[in-house]
């Protein structure tokens, strides 16, 4: 297998039912986590000053259980068979409401809830794109759906990569390459790692916080790993390499600063490791990779047309988003809201 197989995957020629099921399990776990947070949250002086009442009213409301049940039911339907665009969108909408409510009730959204949402969004965009490619096909849609999941997989991987490319772009826009200096990472470690931690992790964090050179090397590595996430599009081996680098980056951040990003790490393992190559060694496990999807050629005209429509939709989305006060709302997420004295309920 060539290392460079643009757009290729270890799942090629195999059913992606396990991949879809794995994504659904991670989404369920995410839904449970954010629902638990919103259930315990109450509107307070720390809440977003411009958040709509209906969003803040979700805190501690029975509607949280309704959204959770809706989200889980939808993602189960999504996982049951390929091509369930509407069920996936419903699960994503339920998760989005819960995460936005959590962010409005607190001081902004918790970013560790984002990776499953953007992977699901990417999956759905991939499905829609593949449907566009085969819109004029004579074959019935049910027959095309297993093939369309190759695009769903690529959409999810690209969205995950976009997340890390955004992180490195933000660093470049705010500071530039000088972000990889000898102080910024040390500051992050010192502000997060528990004081007086004598464990091995504590000793490691203490060493990094005290070593300007190590901090600089790790900061530079962060930029390369986050920027290198785009290599995941190049083919299965590049995806494996870039995915493991991102996974290692998250593990290191957890050791140093206790910031875990479990869902993102799990998604990296799900989408980047060569699971099909491992599973096919055992006949019973190999059955899970069957039946293979059909082989369908994509006419060049269909690709150009669908790509143009996708690009137009993205541009329209950007224009609509610019016209709405979303950016101003987001800027208030971390604004100072008084001393916020008093325990939370």
């Amino acid at each position, binding site marked *: 297998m060539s290392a460079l*197989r*643009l*757009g*290729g995957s270890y799942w*090629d*020629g*195999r059913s992606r039912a396990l991949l879809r099921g794995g994504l659904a399990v991670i989404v369920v776990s995410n839904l449970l986590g954010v629902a638990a947070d919103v259930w315990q949250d109450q509107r307070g002086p*720390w809440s977003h000053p411009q958040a709509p009442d209906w969003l803040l009213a979700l805190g501690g409301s029975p509607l949280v259980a309704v959204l959770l049940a809706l989200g889980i039911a939808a993602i189960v339907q999504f996982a049951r068979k390929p091509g369930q665009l509407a069920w996936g969108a419903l699960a994503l909408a339920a998760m989005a409401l819960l*995460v*936005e409510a959590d*962010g409005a009730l607190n001081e902004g*959204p918790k*970013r560790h809830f*984002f990776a499953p*949402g*953007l992977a699901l969004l990417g999956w759905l965009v991939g499905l829609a*794109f593949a449907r566009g490619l085969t819109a004029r096909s004579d074959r019935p849609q049910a027959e095309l759906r297993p093939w369309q999941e*190759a*695009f769903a997989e*690529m*959409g999810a*991987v*690209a*969205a995950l*990569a*976009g997340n*890390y490319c*955004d*992180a490195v*772009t*933000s*660093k470049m*826009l*705010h500071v530039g390459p000088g972000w990889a*200096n*000898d*102080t910024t990472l*040390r*500051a992050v*470690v*010192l*502000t*997060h790692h528990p*004081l*007086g931690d004598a464990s091995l992790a504590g000793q490691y964090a203490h060493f990094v*916080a005290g070593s300007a050179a190590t901090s600089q090397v790790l900061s530079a590595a962060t930029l390369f790993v986050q920027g290198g996430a*785009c290599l995941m599009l190049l083919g299965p081996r590049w995806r494996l390499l870039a995915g493991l680098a991102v996974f290692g980056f998250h593990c290191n951040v957890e050791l140093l600063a206790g910031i875990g990003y479990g869902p993102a790490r799990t998604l990296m393992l799900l989408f980047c490791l060569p699971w099909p190559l491992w599973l096919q060694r055992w006949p019973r496990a190999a059955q899970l990779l069957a039946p293979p999807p059909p*082989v369908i*050629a*994509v006419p060049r005209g269909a690709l150009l047309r669908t*790509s143009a429509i*996708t690009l137009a939709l*993205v541009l329209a*989305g950007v224009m609509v*988003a610019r016209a709405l006060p979303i*950016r101003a709302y987001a800027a208030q997420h971390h604004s100072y809201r008084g*001393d*916020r*004295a008093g*325990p939370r309920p």
Partner: protein
Amino acid sequence: MAPPPDSLPSRFALGVLVLAGYMALANTVQQLYPFSVFDMYAHEATSASRIGVRTATGALTEVTAWRDWQCPQPIALIGPPDHDQRAPYSIPYRDREAQEWIVGHPGAGSQPVDVVRHIWWLQPVPGQAETEDRVLLHCQAVPQ
């Protein structure tokens, strides 16, 4: 098993479109689930600070290592943003967690402790110490 060759360029095109589209939309909205620019740690920092407890013996510990807090009221450890260039870098939610711990665990403390903002100056100016304690409260508390 070989992949269907004709779909690979299409999939790669989709990947580029999704990656670029996600970045364009995220940079437009900044934060709207599931879009984010993930700029939490994008700013440069030359200092660090934490709310902690300085004990009578001089040890610096987490506030969560103490309970039964008895402090002068009101307990307000977090002030408005200080735009002074030498204001220390801090993580607001960590500060709030420390404050909420103290407020949420009241009692009749027996040991005198100082609640401090401990600062590490990672690029100290000449004559400035590398670390500094700013005392926020004198309290009584009990170790966990």
